[in-house]
Protein backbone atom coordinates (compact mmCIF):
# COMPACT_ATOMS: atom_id res chain seq x y z
CA UNK A 1 0.00 0.00 0.00
CA UNK A 2 1.65 3.21 -1.10
CA UNK A 3 2.19 5.96 1.44
CA UNK A 4 -0.88 8.12 2.08
CA UNK A 5 -2.25 10.61 4.60
CA UNK A 6 -3.76 9.31 7.79
CA UNK A 7 -6.62 6.89 7.37
CA UNK A 8 -9.09 8.93 9.39
CA UNK A 9 -8.62 12.07 7.38
CA UNK A 10 -8.88 10.06 4.23
CA UNK A 11 -11.99 8.30 5.37
CA UNK A 12 -13.71 11.52 6.33
CA UNK A 13 -12.76 13.28 3.12
CA UNK A 14 -13.82 10.28 1.12
CA UNK A 15 -17.17 10.05 2.82
CA UNK A 16 -17.71 13.73 2.19
CA UNK A 17 -16.87 13.41 -1.48
CA UNK A 18 -19.12 10.44 -1.93
CA UNK A 19 -21.97 12.19 -0.18
CA UNK A 20 -21.47 15.18 -2.44
CA UNK A 21 -21.52 12.85 -5.42
CA UNK A 22 -24.70 11.08 -4.50
CA UNK A 23 -26.71 13.80 -2.81
CA UNK A 24 -27.83 15.62 -5.94
CA UNK A 25 -29.00 12.36 -7.45
CA UNK A 26 -30.90 11.51 -4.31
CA UNK A 27 -32.40 14.96 -4.28
CA UNK A 28 -33.47 14.63 -7.89
CA UNK A 29 -35.28 11.44 -7.03
CA UNK A 30 -36.80 12.83 -3.84
CA UNK A 31 -37.98 16.05 -5.42
CA UNK A 32 -39.56 14.22 -8.32
CA UNK A 33 -41.76 12.46 -5.82
CA UNK A 34 -42.84 15.61 -4.02
CA UNK A 35 -46.19 17.12 -4.82
CA UNK A 36 -46.09 20.32 -6.87
CA UNK A 37 -47.00 22.47 -3.92
CA UNK A 38 -44.18 21.16 -1.76
CA UNK A 39 -41.53 21.66 -4.42
CA UNK A 40 -41.10 25.24 -3.43
CA UNK A 41 -39.96 24.48 0.06
CA UNK A 42 -36.27 23.99 0.31
CA UNK A 43 -36.29 22.64 3.82
CA UNK A 44 -36.94 19.00 4.47
CA UNK A 45 -34.54 16.41 3.09
CA UNK A 46 -37.03 13.63 3.16
CA UNK A 47 -40.21 14.08 1.21
CA UNK A 48 -43.06 14.28 3.62
CA UNK A 49 -45.62 13.19 1.08
CA UNK A 50 -44.86 10.99 -1.89
CA UNK A 51 -46.73 11.37 -5.11
CA UNK A 52 -46.45 9.99 -8.60
CA UNK A 53 -48.35 12.81 -10.24
CA UNK A 54 -45.31 14.02 -12.12
CA UNK A 55 -44.59 10.61 -13.56
CA UNK A 56 -48.18 10.18 -14.59
CA UNK A 57 -48.13 13.53 -16.37
CA UNK A 58 -44.88 12.56 -18.01
CA UNK A 59 -46.21 9.50 -19.69
CA UNK A 60 -49.74 10.80 -20.06
CA UNK A 61 -49.70 14.32 -21.36
CA UNK A 62 -46.16 14.42 -22.54
CA UNK A 63 -45.84 10.95 -24.02
CA UNK A 64 -42.34 10.54 -22.75
CA UNK A 65 -42.04 7.09 -24.25
CA UNK A 66 -41.41 8.63 -27.66
CA UNK A 67 -38.15 10.37 -26.78
CA UNK A 68 -37.02 7.27 -24.91
CA UNK A 69 -37.64 5.18 -27.99
CA UNK A 70 -35.82 7.70 -30.16
CA UNK A 71 -32.80 7.81 -27.86
CA UNK A 72 -32.62 4.03 -27.68
CA UNK A 73 -32.80 3.67 -31.44
CA UNK A 74 -30.28 6.35 -32.27
CA UNK A 75 -27.78 5.30 -29.62
CA UNK A 76 -28.19 1.65 -30.48
CA UNK A 77 -27.86 2.16 -34.22
CA UNK A 78 -24.78 4.33 -33.84
CA UNK A 79 -23.12 1.76 -31.62
CA UNK A 80 -23.94 -1.07 -34.00
CA UNK A 81 -22.43 0.80 -36.92
CA UNK A 82 -19.45 2.38 -35.19
CA UNK A 83 -18.03 -0.55 -33.24
CA UNK A 84 -17.49 -3.14 -36.01
CA UNK A 85 -16.13 -0.61 -38.50
CA UNK A 86 -13.85 0.84 -35.86
CA UNK A 87 -12.71 -2.64 -34.83
CA UNK A 88 -11.37 -3.39 -38.30
CA UNK A 89 -9.55 -0.07 -38.41
CA UNK A 90 -8.27 -0.47 -34.86
CA UNK A 91 -6.82 -3.91 -35.60
CA UNK A 92 -4.90 -2.53 -38.53
CA UNK A 93 -3.60 0.34 -36.44
CA UNK A 94 -2.70 -1.88 -33.51
CA UNK A 95 -1.02 -4.76 -35.30
CA UNK A 96 -0.33 -4.31 -38.98
CA UNK A 97 2.68 -2.63 -40.50
CA UNK A 98 1.78 0.47 -42.42
CA UNK A 99 3.36 3.79 -43.03
CA UNK A 100 1.65 6.91 -41.74
CA UNK A 101 0.09 5.09 -38.83
CA UNK A 102 0.87 7.79 -36.31
CA UNK A 103 -0.34 10.44 -38.72
CA UNK A 104 -3.60 8.56 -39.06
CA UNK A 105 -4.05 8.25 -35.32
CA UNK A 106 -3.21 11.90 -34.81
CA UNK A 107 -5.74 12.77 -37.52
CA UNK A 108 -8.42 10.68 -35.83
CA UNK A 109 -7.66 12.37 -32.52
CA UNK A 110 -7.69 15.82 -34.09
CA UNK A 111 -11.10 15.18 -35.60
CA UNK A 112 -12.52 14.23 -32.23
CA UNK A 113 -11.03 17.38 -30.75
CA UNK A 114 -13.06 19.55 -33.07
CA UNK A 115 -15.80 21.40 -31.19
CA UNK A 116 -19.17 20.02 -32.12
CA UNK A 117 -20.60 23.45 -32.71
CA UNK A 118 -18.19 23.89 -35.59
CA UNK A 119 -19.78 21.25 -37.75
CA UNK A 120 -23.40 21.93 -36.95
CA UNK A 121 -24.05 24.40 -39.77
CA UNK A 122 -22.57 22.38 -42.64
CA UNK A 123 -24.11 19.19 -41.30
CA UNK A 124 -27.41 20.99 -41.04
CA UNK A 125 -27.22 22.07 -44.65
CA UNK A 126 -26.10 18.64 -45.84
CA UNK A 127 -28.83 16.84 -43.91
CA UNK A 128 -31.41 19.33 -45.13
CA UNK A 129 -30.40 18.76 -48.73
CA UNK A 130 -30.45 14.99 -48.26
CA UNK A 131 -33.85 15.33 -46.56
CA UNK A 132 -32.50 13.60 -43.52
CA UNK A 133 -33.41 16.27 -40.99
CA UNK A 134 -35.62 14.98 -38.22
CA UNK A 135 -34.91 11.33 -39.10
CA UNK A 136 -33.00 8.55 -37.39
CA UNK A 137 -30.20 8.35 -39.98
CA UNK A 138 -30.10 12.13 -39.72
CA UNK A 139 -28.86 11.74 -36.17
CA UNK A 140 -26.81 8.58 -36.53
CA UNK A 141 -24.58 10.15 -39.17
CA UNK A 142 -23.62 13.16 -37.03
CA UNK A 143 -23.20 10.90 -34.02
CA UNK A 144 -20.63 8.94 -35.98
CA UNK A 145 -18.42 12.04 -36.05
CA UNK A 146 -17.51 11.56 -32.42
CA UNK A 147 -18.32 7.85 -32.06
CA UNK A 148 -15.90 6.65 -34.73
CA UNK A 149 -12.78 8.40 -33.37
CA UNK A 150 -13.68 7.38 -29.84
CA UNK A 151 -14.25 3.76 -30.83
CA UNK A 152 -11.05 3.62 -32.85
CA UNK A 153 -9.07 5.15 -30.00
CA UNK A 154 -10.47 2.74 -27.41
CA UNK A 155 -10.30 -0.41 -29.52
CA UNK A 156 -6.74 0.28 -30.65
CA UNK A 157 -5.78 0.52 -27.01
CA UNK A 158 -7.51 -2.75 -26.16
CA UNK A 159 -6.05 -4.64 -29.11
CA UNK A 160 -2.57 -3.43 -28.23
CA UNK A 161 -2.91 -4.89 -24.77
CA UNK A 162 -3.32 -8.41 -26.09
CA UNK A 163 -0.18 -10.58 -26.10
CA UNK A 164 1.30 -10.65 -29.55
CA UNK A 165 2.46 -14.22 -29.52
CA UNK A 166 -1.10 -15.58 -29.61
CA UNK A 167 -1.61 -13.96 -32.98
CA UNK A 168 1.82 -15.17 -34.12
CA UNK A 169 0.93 -18.71 -33.08
CA UNK A 170 -2.27 -18.49 -35.10
CA UNK A 171 -0.36 -17.25 -38.14
CA UNK A 172 2.08 -20.12 -37.90
CA UNK A 173 -0.91 -22.43 -37.59
CA UNK A 174 -1.86 -21.13 -41.01
CA UNK A 175 -4.52 -18.52 -40.18
CA UNK A 176 -4.67 -15.37 -42.28
CA UNK A 177 -4.74 -12.01 -40.53
CA UNK A 178 -8.51 -11.74 -40.92
CA UNK A 179 -8.99 -15.24 -39.61
CA UNK A 180 -6.71 -14.49 -36.68
CA UNK A 181 -8.79 -11.41 -35.96
CA UNK A 182 -11.93 -13.51 -35.93
CA UNK A 183 -10.69 -16.62 -34.13
CA UNK A 184 -8.20 -15.22 -31.65
CA UNK A 185 -8.22 -11.45 -31.29
CA UNK A 186 -11.93 -10.69 -31.07
CA UNK A 187 -12.80 -13.44 -28.55
CA UNK A 188 -9.97 -12.29 -26.33
CA UNK A 189 -10.75 -8.62 -26.79
CA UNK A 190 -14.46 -9.16 -26.14
CA UNK A 191 -14.38 -7.35 -22.78
CA UNK A 192 -12.69 -4.39 -24.47
CA UNK A 193 -15.21 -4.42 -27.29
CA UNK A 194 -17.97 -4.45 -24.69
CA UNK A 195 -16.41 -1.50 -22.88
CA UNK A 196 -16.21 0.40 -26.12
CA UNK A 197 -19.81 -0.33 -27.03
CA UNK A 198 -21.02 0.74 -23.59
CA UNK A 199 -19.10 4.00 -23.70
CA UNK A 200 -20.30 4.82 -27.21
CA UNK A 201 -23.88 4.10 -26.20
CA UNK A 202 -23.54 6.34 -23.14
CA UNK A 203 -22.10 9.22 -25.13
CA UNK A 204 -24.89 8.96 -27.69
CA UNK A 205 -27.58 8.71 -25.04
CA UNK A 206 -26.30 11.87 -23.36
CA UNK A 207 -25.66 13.88 -26.48
CA UNK A 208 -27.49 17.18 -26.67
CA UNK A 209 -26.24 19.68 -29.25
CA UNK A 210 -26.64 17.60 -32.39
CA UNK A 211 -30.00 16.29 -31.25
CA UNK A 212 -31.12 19.83 -30.57
CA UNK A 213 -29.95 21.03 -33.97
CA UNK A 214 -31.02 18.21 -36.23
CA UNK A 215 -34.44 17.24 -34.91
CA UNK A 216 -37.41 19.43 -35.62
CA UNK A 217 -40.37 18.00 -33.78
CA UNK A 218 -41.39 16.00 -30.71
CA UNK A 219 -41.70 12.80 -32.73
CA UNK A 220 -37.94 12.67 -33.18
CA UNK A 221 -36.65 14.44 -30.09
CA UNK A 222 -34.24 12.44 -28.03
CA UNK A 223 -34.47 12.36 -24.25
CA UNK A 224 -32.10 15.27 -23.48
CA UNK A 225 -33.83 17.51 -25.98
CA UNK A 226 -37.31 16.55 -24.85
CA UNK A 227 -36.49 17.30 -21.23
CA UNK A 228 -34.92 20.57 -22.15
CA UNK A 229 -37.97 21.69 -24.08
CA UNK A 230 -40.36 21.07 -21.22
CA UNK A 231 -39.68 24.64 -20.26
CA UNK A 232 -43.01 26.35 -20.42
CA UNK A 233 -43.44 29.96 -21.35
CA UNK A 234 -43.88 31.21 -17.84
CA UNK A 235 -42.70 28.63 -15.48
CA UNK A 236 -40.52 25.58 -15.55
CA UNK A 237 -42.60 22.50 -14.63
CA UNK A 238 -39.93 21.31 -12.26
CA UNK A 239 -41.86 18.32 -11.04
CA UNK A 240 -42.14 16.85 -14.50
CA UNK A 241 -38.67 17.94 -15.49
CA UNK A 242 -37.22 16.12 -12.51
CA UNK A 243 -39.34 13.06 -13.14
CA UNK A 244 -38.10 13.03 -16.73
CA UNK A 245 -34.56 13.46 -15.45
CA UNK A 246 -35.01 10.42 -13.23
CA UNK A 247 -36.33 8.39 -16.13
CA UNK A 248 -33.47 9.56 -18.32
CA UNK A 249 -31.03 8.51 -15.64
CA UNK A 250 -32.37 5.02 -15.08
CA UNK A 251 -30.87 3.28 -18.14
CA UNK A 252 -27.60 5.03 -17.48
CA UNK A 253 -27.64 4.00 -13.85
CA UNK A 254 -28.42 0.42 -14.79
CA UNK A 255 -25.57 0.35 -17.26
CA UNK A 256 -23.18 1.74 -14.71
CA UNK A 257 -24.32 -0.72 -12.07
CA UNK A 258 -24.02 -3.68 -14.39
CA UNK A 259 -20.85 -2.74 -16.20
CA UNK A 260 -18.79 -0.50 -13.95
CA UNK A 261 -15.71 -2.63 -14.43
CA UNK A 262 -16.04 -2.52 -18.19
CA UNK A 263 -16.61 1.25 -18.09
CA UNK A 264 -13.54 1.86 -15.99
CA UNK A 265 -11.51 -0.41 -18.27
CA UNK A 266 -12.59 1.65 -21.23
CA UNK A 267 -11.81 4.97 -19.61
CA UNK A 268 -8.34 3.91 -18.59
CA UNK A 269 -7.16 1.99 -21.62
CA UNK A 270 -5.49 4.98 -23.17
CA UNK A 271 -4.37 6.55 -19.95
CA UNK A 272 -1.99 3.94 -18.69
CA UNK A 273 0.30 2.85 -21.45
CA UNK A 274 2.93 0.57 -19.99
Amino acid at each position, binding site marked *: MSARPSAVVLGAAGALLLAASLFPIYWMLAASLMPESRLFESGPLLPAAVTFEHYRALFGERDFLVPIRNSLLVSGLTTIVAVPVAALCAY*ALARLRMRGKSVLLAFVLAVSMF*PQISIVPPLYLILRDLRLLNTYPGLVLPYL*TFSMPLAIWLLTGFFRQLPRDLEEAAMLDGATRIRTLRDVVLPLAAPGVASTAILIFLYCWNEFLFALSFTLGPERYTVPVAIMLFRGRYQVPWGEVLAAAVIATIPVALLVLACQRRIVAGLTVGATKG
Partner: protein
Amino acid sequence: MNRGPAPIERDETRLAWLLVAPALGIILLVALAPIAVTGWESLHVHDLRLPWLGTPFIGAGNFVEAAGDPRFGAALLHTVAFALISVPLELVLGLALAVMMHSVVRGRAFIRVSALLPWAIPTVVAALLWRFMFEARTGILAGWFQALGLVGPAFDWFVHPLAAWVPIIAADVWKTTPFVAILLLAGLETIDPALGEAAQVDGAKPARAFLTITLPLLTPALVVAAAFRMLDALRLFDLAYVITGGGPGTATEPLSLYAFIALMQRLRFGYGSALSVTVFLLTFVFALVWVRALGRSLTGDRS
Protein backbone atom coordinates in the same frame (compact mmCIF):
# COMPACT_ATOMS: atom_id res chain seq x y z
CA MET B 1 21.01 -3.19 -49.32
CA ASN B 2 17.75 -1.22 -49.38
CA ARG B 3 15.37 -3.04 -51.66
CA GLY B 4 12.25 -1.39 -50.32
CA PRO B 5 9.47 -3.23 -48.50
CA ALA B 6 9.42 -7.00 -48.80
CA PRO B 7 6.39 -8.65 -50.46
CA ILE B 8 5.15 -9.79 -47.07
CA GLU B 9 5.24 -6.26 -45.77
CA ARG B 10 3.54 -4.92 -48.88
CA ASP B 11 0.72 -7.42 -48.53
CA GLU B 12 0.31 -6.50 -44.91
CA THR B 13 0.20 -2.81 -45.70
CA ARG B 14 -2.38 -3.42 -48.39
CA LEU B 15 -4.56 -5.34 -45.95
CA ALA B 16 -4.08 -2.63 -43.36
CA TRP B 17 -5.35 0.07 -45.68
CA LEU B 18 -8.28 -2.13 -46.63
CA LEU B 19 -9.27 -2.46 -43.00
CA VAL B 20 -8.79 1.21 -42.31
CA ALA B 21 -10.71 2.37 -45.37
CA PRO B 22 -14.33 2.05 -44.15
CA ALA B 23 -13.65 3.89 -40.90
CA LEU B 24 -11.58 6.51 -42.65
CA GLY B 25 -14.26 6.92 -45.29
CA ILE B 26 -16.94 7.53 -42.71
CA ILE B 27 -14.80 10.02 -40.84
CA LEU B 28 -13.86 11.89 -43.99
CA LEU B 29 -17.48 12.02 -45.06
CA VAL B 30 -19.16 12.88 -41.82
CA ALA B 31 -16.49 14.86 -40.04
CA LEU B 32 -13.84 16.18 -42.34
CA ALA B 33 -16.17 17.37 -45.07
CA PRO B 34 -18.28 19.48 -42.69
CA ILE B 35 -15.12 20.80 -41.02
CA ALA B 36 -13.82 21.86 -44.41
CA VAL B 37 -17.14 23.51 -45.19
CA THR B 38 -17.02 25.36 -41.88
CA GLY B 39 -13.57 26.58 -42.77
CA TRP B 40 -14.84 27.75 -46.13
CA GLU B 41 -17.89 29.41 -44.60
CA SER B 42 -15.76 31.27 -42.09
CA LEU B 43 -14.11 33.07 -44.97
CA HIS B 44 -17.37 34.12 -46.60
CA VAL B 45 -20.47 36.11 -45.88
CA HIS B 46 -23.44 33.78 -45.53
CA ASP B 47 -26.51 35.15 -43.83
CA LEU B 48 -29.49 32.86 -44.24
CA ARG B 49 -31.84 35.69 -43.58
CA LEU B 50 -30.39 37.73 -46.41
CA PRO B 51 -30.06 35.17 -49.20
CA TRP B 52 -29.99 37.79 -51.93
CA LEU B 53 -26.55 38.82 -50.76
CA GLY B 54 -25.15 35.48 -51.90
CA THR B 55 -21.93 34.21 -50.35
CA PRO B 56 -19.10 36.58 -51.27
CA PHE B 57 -15.56 35.87 -50.15
CA ILE B 58 -14.31 38.22 -47.46
CA GLY B 59 -11.14 36.51 -46.35
CA ALA B 60 -10.47 37.24 -42.71
CA GLY B 61 -13.38 39.67 -42.56
CA ASN B 62 -15.41 37.62 -40.13
CA PHE B 63 -12.43 37.17 -37.85
CA VAL B 64 -11.71 40.87 -37.92
CA GLU B 65 -15.31 41.51 -36.97
CA ALA B 66 -14.97 39.04 -34.15
CA ALA B 67 -11.82 40.72 -32.89
CA GLY B 68 -13.72 43.97 -32.61
CA ASP B 69 -16.87 42.37 -31.24
CA PRO B 70 -17.10 42.99 -27.49
CA ARG B 71 -19.45 40.07 -27.07
CA PHE B 72 -16.80 37.82 -28.64
CA GLY B 73 -14.14 39.17 -26.28
CA ALA B 74 -16.41 38.54 -23.32
CA ALA B 75 -17.21 35.01 -24.49
CA LEU B 76 -13.53 34.26 -24.92
CA LEU B 77 -12.81 35.56 -21.44
CA HIS B 78 -15.63 33.49 -19.99
CA THR B 79 -14.41 30.35 -21.70
CA VAL B 80 -10.81 30.64 -20.60
CA ALA B 81 -11.69 31.73 -17.07
CA PHE B 82 -14.10 28.84 -16.72
CA ALA B 83 -11.44 26.37 -17.85
CA LEU B 84 -8.80 27.83 -15.56
CA ILE B 85 -11.10 27.60 -12.54
CA SER B 86 -12.88 24.32 -13.00
CA VAL B 87 -10.01 22.16 -14.27
CA PRO B 88 -7.67 22.69 -11.29
CA LEU B 89 -10.62 22.15 -8.97
CA GLU B 90 -11.41 18.90 -10.70
CA LEU B 91 -7.79 17.78 -10.57
CA VAL B 92 -7.48 18.41 -6.85
CA LEU B 93 -10.80 16.84 -5.92
CA GLY B 94 -10.24 14.03 -8.37
CA LEU B 95 -6.87 13.31 -6.80
CA ALA B 96 -8.40 13.25 -3.34
CA LEU B 97 -11.11 10.90 -4.54
CA ALA B 98 -8.58 8.69 -6.30
CA VAL B 99 -6.36 8.44 -3.26
CA MET B 100 -9.33 7.47 -1.18
CA MET B 101 -10.52 4.90 -3.68
CA HIS B 102 -7.04 3.47 -3.81
CA SER B 103 -6.70 2.92 -0.09
CA VAL B 104 -10.10 1.35 0.35
CA VAL B 105 -10.10 -2.40 0.35
CA ARG B 106 -13.75 -3.26 0.73
CA GLY B 107 -16.71 -1.71 -0.99
CA ARG B 108 -14.75 -0.82 -4.08
CA ALA B 109 -17.65 -1.61 -6.36
CA PHE B 110 -20.01 0.63 -4.43
CA ILE B 111 -17.54 3.47 -4.50
CA ARG B 112 -16.92 3.06 -8.19
CA VAL B 113 -20.64 3.10 -8.97
CA SER B 114 -21.19 6.15 -6.75
CA ALA B 115 -18.34 7.91 -8.46
CA LEU B 116 -19.43 6.96 -11.97
CA LEU B 117 -23.08 7.97 -11.69
CA PRO B 118 -22.56 11.74 -11.92
CA TRP B 119 -20.26 11.21 -14.88
CA ALA B 120 -22.69 8.98 -16.71
CA ILE B 121 -25.76 11.14 -16.24
CA PRO B 122 -26.76 13.13 -19.31
CA THR B 123 -25.30 16.62 -19.13
CA VAL B 124 -28.73 18.08 -19.68
CA VAL B 125 -30.08 16.23 -16.66
CA ALA B 126 -27.16 17.33 -14.53
CA ALA B 127 -27.62 20.90 -15.70
CA LEU B 128 -31.31 20.93 -14.90
CA LEU B 129 -30.65 19.36 -11.54
CA TRP B 130 -28.12 21.98 -10.55
CA ARG B 131 -30.36 24.73 -11.83
CA PHE B 132 -33.12 23.34 -9.68
CA MET B 133 -30.91 23.21 -6.61
CA PHE B 134 -29.94 26.86 -6.98
CA GLU B 135 -33.39 28.20 -7.83
CA ALA B 136 -34.33 31.05 -5.60
CA ARG B 137 -37.52 29.51 -4.26
CA THR B 138 -37.18 25.78 -4.74
CA GLY B 139 -33.45 25.28 -4.66
CA ILE B 140 -32.18 23.36 -1.70
CA LEU B 141 -28.65 24.66 -2.10
CA ALA B 142 -29.93 28.21 -2.46
CA GLY B 143 -31.72 27.62 0.80
CA TRP B 144 -28.57 26.35 2.53
CA PHE B 145 -26.48 29.28 1.40
CA GLN B 146 -29.15 31.58 2.71
CA ALA B 147 -29.43 29.69 5.98
CA LEU B 148 -25.68 29.93 6.41
CA GLY B 149 -25.95 33.68 6.01
CA LEU B 150 -23.70 33.74 2.97
CA VAL B 151 -26.30 35.44 0.81
CA GLY B 152 -29.26 37.74 1.39
CA PRO B 153 -32.84 36.49 1.79
CA ALA B 154 -34.10 37.22 -1.72
CA PHE B 155 -30.86 36.44 -3.53
CA ASP B 156 -31.41 35.12 -7.01
CA TRP B 157 -28.31 33.34 -8.20
CA PHE B 158 -29.23 33.65 -11.82
CA VAL B 159 -29.65 37.38 -11.81
CA HIS B 160 -26.17 38.10 -10.61
CA PRO B 161 -23.53 37.92 -13.42
CA LEU B 162 -20.83 36.30 -11.30
CA ALA B 163 -23.04 34.20 -9.05
CA ALA B 164 -24.66 32.64 -12.09
CA TRP B 165 -21.32 30.96 -12.81
CA VAL B 166 -21.40 29.07 -9.54
CA PRO B 167 -24.03 26.49 -10.53
CA ILE B 168 -22.29 26.02 -13.88
CA ILE B 169 -18.90 25.41 -12.33
CA ALA B 170 -20.42 23.28 -9.60
CA ALA B 171 -22.23 21.14 -12.15
CA ASP B 172 -19.09 20.68 -14.22
CA VAL B 173 -16.94 19.82 -11.24
CA TRP B 174 -19.59 17.46 -9.89
CA LYS B 175 -19.93 15.70 -13.18
CA THR B 176 -16.32 15.31 -14.24
CA THR B 177 -14.39 14.88 -10.99
CA PRO B 178 -15.21 11.15 -11.08
CA PHE B 179 -13.74 10.89 -14.57
CA VAL B 180 -10.53 12.54 -13.38
CA ALA B 181 -10.52 10.33 -10.28
CA ILE B 182 -10.72 7.19 -12.37
CA LEU B 183 -7.88 8.25 -14.62
CA LEU B 184 -5.74 9.10 -11.60
CA LEU B 185 -6.72 5.90 -9.84
CA ALA B 186 -5.42 3.91 -12.78
CA GLY B 187 -2.19 5.87 -12.49
CA LEU B 188 -2.00 5.22 -8.76
CA GLU B 189 -2.44 1.54 -9.27
CA THR B 190 0.57 1.30 -11.54
CA ILE B 191 2.87 2.78 -8.91
CA ASP B 192 4.94 0.10 -7.26
CA PRO B 193 3.87 -0.09 -3.58
CA ALA B 194 7.42 -1.06 -2.70
CA LEU B 195 8.46 2.54 -3.31
CA GLY B 196 6.13 3.85 -0.64
CA GLU B 197 7.23 1.15 1.74
CA ALA B 198 10.88 1.97 1.16
CA ALA B 199 10.11 5.58 2.00
CA GLN B 200 8.41 4.55 5.22
CA VAL B 201 11.38 2.41 6.19
CA ASP B 202 13.57 5.42 5.48
CA GLY B 203 11.51 7.30 8.05
CA ALA B 204 9.35 9.53 5.90
CA LYS B 205 5.97 10.47 7.29
CA PRO B 206 3.03 9.42 5.10
CA ALA B 207 2.20 12.95 3.97
CA ARG B 208 5.78 13.65 2.99
CA ALA B 209 6.12 10.33 1.18
CA PHE B 210 2.98 11.13 -0.74
CA LEU B 211 4.25 14.53 -1.81
CA THR B 212 7.76 13.51 -2.71
CA ILE B 213 7.23 10.04 -4.16
CA THR B 214 3.64 9.34 -5.16
CA LEU B 215 2.80 12.70 -6.63
CA PRO B 216 5.81 12.97 -8.94
CA LEU B 217 5.19 9.44 -10.19
CA LEU B 218 1.59 10.35 -10.83
CA THR B 219 2.56 13.26 -13.05
CA PRO B 220 1.95 11.49 -16.38
CA ALA B 221 -1.58 10.55 -15.35
CA LEU B 222 -2.20 14.06 -14.00
CA VAL B 223 -1.01 15.57 -17.24
CA VAL B 224 -3.28 13.33 -19.31
CA ALA B 225 -6.27 14.07 -17.10
CA ALA B 226 -5.57 17.81 -17.19
CA ALA B 227 -5.25 17.76 -20.97
CA PHE B 228 -8.51 15.92 -21.55
CA ARG B 229 -10.35 18.15 -19.14
CA MET B 230 -8.98 21.39 -20.54
CA LEU B 231 -9.98 20.37 -24.06
CA ASP B 232 -13.51 19.68 -22.90
CA ALA B 233 -13.74 22.78 -20.73
CA LEU B 234 -12.76 25.04 -23.60
CA ARG B 235 -15.71 23.63 -25.55
CA LEU B 236 -18.27 24.27 -22.82
CA PHE B 237 -21.80 24.41 -24.22
CA ASP B 238 -24.42 22.11 -22.74
CA LEU B 239 -24.18 23.29 -19.13
CA ALA B 240 -24.23 26.98 -19.98
CA TYR B 241 -27.11 26.61 -22.43
CA VAL B 242 -29.29 24.66 -20.04
CA ILE B 243 -28.49 26.26 -16.70
CA THR B 244 -28.41 29.93 -17.63
CA GLY B 245 -28.91 30.16 -21.37
CA GLY B 246 -25.87 32.39 -21.30
CA GLY B 247 -27.51 34.87 -18.94
CA PRO B 248 -28.05 37.11 -17.21
CA GLY B 249 -27.66 38.91 -20.50
CA THR B 250 -24.50 37.36 -21.83
CA ALA B 251 -22.67 37.12 -18.52
CA THR B 252 -22.29 33.37 -18.63
CA GLU B 253 -21.96 32.91 -22.35
CA PRO B 254 -19.00 30.78 -23.46
CA LEU B 255 -17.62 30.88 -27.00
CA SER B 256 -19.44 27.78 -28.19
CA LEU B 257 -22.76 29.19 -27.09
CA TYR B 258 -22.13 32.49 -28.84
CA ALA B 259 -21.25 30.57 -31.99
CA PHE B 260 -24.42 28.55 -31.64
CA ILE B 261 -26.54 31.68 -31.28
CA ALA B 262 -24.90 33.32 -34.27
CA LEU B 263 -25.49 30.19 -36.33
CA MET B 264 -28.83 28.81 -35.33
CA GLN B 265 -30.64 31.86 -34.00
CA ARG B 266 -29.21 34.73 -35.98
CA LEU B 267 -28.56 32.46 -38.97
CA ARG B 268 -25.27 34.20 -39.74
CA PHE B 269 -23.50 31.14 -41.02
CA GLY B 270 -20.40 32.97 -42.13
CA TYR B 271 -19.79 34.77 -38.87
CA GLY B 272 -20.91 31.81 -36.77
CA SER B 273 -18.51 29.56 -38.65
CA ALA B 274 -15.70 31.98 -37.95
CA LEU B 275 -16.58 31.86 -34.26
CA SER B 276 -16.57 28.06 -34.39
CA VAL B 277 -13.19 28.05 -36.05
CA THR B 278 -11.98 30.25 -33.23
CA VAL B 279 -13.10 27.68 -30.68
CA PHE B 280 -11.25 25.03 -32.63
CA LEU B 281 -8.12 27.17 -32.86
CA LEU B 282 -8.26 27.75 -29.13
CA THR B 283 -8.37 24.03 -28.40
CA PHE B 284 -5.80 23.27 -31.07
CA VAL B 285 -3.32 25.85 -29.84
CA PHE B 286 -3.81 24.63 -26.32
CA ALA B 287 -3.22 21.02 -27.38
CA LEU B 288 -0.09 22.02 -29.27
CA VAL B 289 1.36 24.02 -26.40
CA TRP B 290 0.49 21.21 -24.05
CA VAL B 291 2.15 18.53 -26.13
CA ARG B 292 5.26 20.67 -26.55
CA ALA B 293 5.48 21.37 -22.84
CA LEU B 294 4.81 17.73 -22.12
CA GLY B 295 7.51 16.56 -24.47
CA ARG B 296 10.02 18.91 -22.94
CA SER B 297 9.14 17.97 -19.40
CA LEU B 298 9.26 14.25 -20.09
CA THR B 299 12.56 14.29 -21.96
CA GLY B 300 14.28 17.09 -20.07
CA ASP B 301 13.42 16.44 -16.50
CA ARG B 302 14.61 12.88 -16.12
CA SER B 303 15.64 13.00 -12.47
